[in-house]
């Protein structure tokens, strides 16, 4: 089997991020990631899911979707929210907004560290506006050695 896929959908509420973190932590550990790396993966996941819940699918009855893929050389996690923008309004996700967020980031600020953390601790971080007008965030964590998945 070349790839294994896991789908997970939770209500858009912070309460459900902890179980998701437990799921991914357990999975990453079983895949052989080091303790340190497992903690990094869990933190990135927490930050990306928190953004999906707080800025993306703001209405709790709407879900946040995760697709977790395991292939021979990496664990990949896609987090998809539905967005909240009224029809016609532009997506928040522009180069200008992203460089503004990056420029304004300061240790003194209470917020604005999530995207920075996700970028810093993952091997690949990608954000895209999706079909429903929300945000797709894709993060990749590579295995040190390629693995044969027979699981």
């Amino acid at each position: 089997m070349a790839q294994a896929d896991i789908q997970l959908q939770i209500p858009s509420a912070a309460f459900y991020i902890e179980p998701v973190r437990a799921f991914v932590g357990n999975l990453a550990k079983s895949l052989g990631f080091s303790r340190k790396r497992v903690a990094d993966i869990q933190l990135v996941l927490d930050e990306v899911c928190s953004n999906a819940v707080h800025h993306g699918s703001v209405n709790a009855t709407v879900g946040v979707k995760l697709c977790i893929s395991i292939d021979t050389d990496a664990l990949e996690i896609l987090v998809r929210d539905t967005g909240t923008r009224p029809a016609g309004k532009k997506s928040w996700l522009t180069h200008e907004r992203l460089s503004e967020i990056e420029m304004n980031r300061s240790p003194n600020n209470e917020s604005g560290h999530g995207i920075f953390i996700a970028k810093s601790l993952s091997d690949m971080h990608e954000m895209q506006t999706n079909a429903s007008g929300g945000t797709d965030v894709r993060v990749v964590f590579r295995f040190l050695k390629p693995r044969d998945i027979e699981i």
Partner: protein
Amino acid sequence: MDSTKLMKLREESGIKIIEIKTDLSSYAASDLRKMLEGLLAEKVEKVVVNLSQVSHINSTAVGALVGVAKRLRQSGGDLKICALADNLTRTFNLIGASSVVEIYESENSALAAF
């Protein structure tokens, strides 16, 4: 579940000590923030947050600690944190919060620093 049950508040020689017995993702972070704002409202000046039983913290929770530390300093007080697991230290360092909030090895050293 109300995660504030997992945040124990006590006082020692005029310093409020919060001992946190839950991981600090966004859900618990908002309860932590509420508890800290309660202390600000009561005009508390000195706070120590003991993180020895916390194995995960996210940027929202770090932000709550940074924000309250800054506000307490404006009135001559402070918030100090202690007993961080390695990965919590890494998260504070990554954000840069280690240079904003005072971090101590143990609760006693945090108390002594006031």
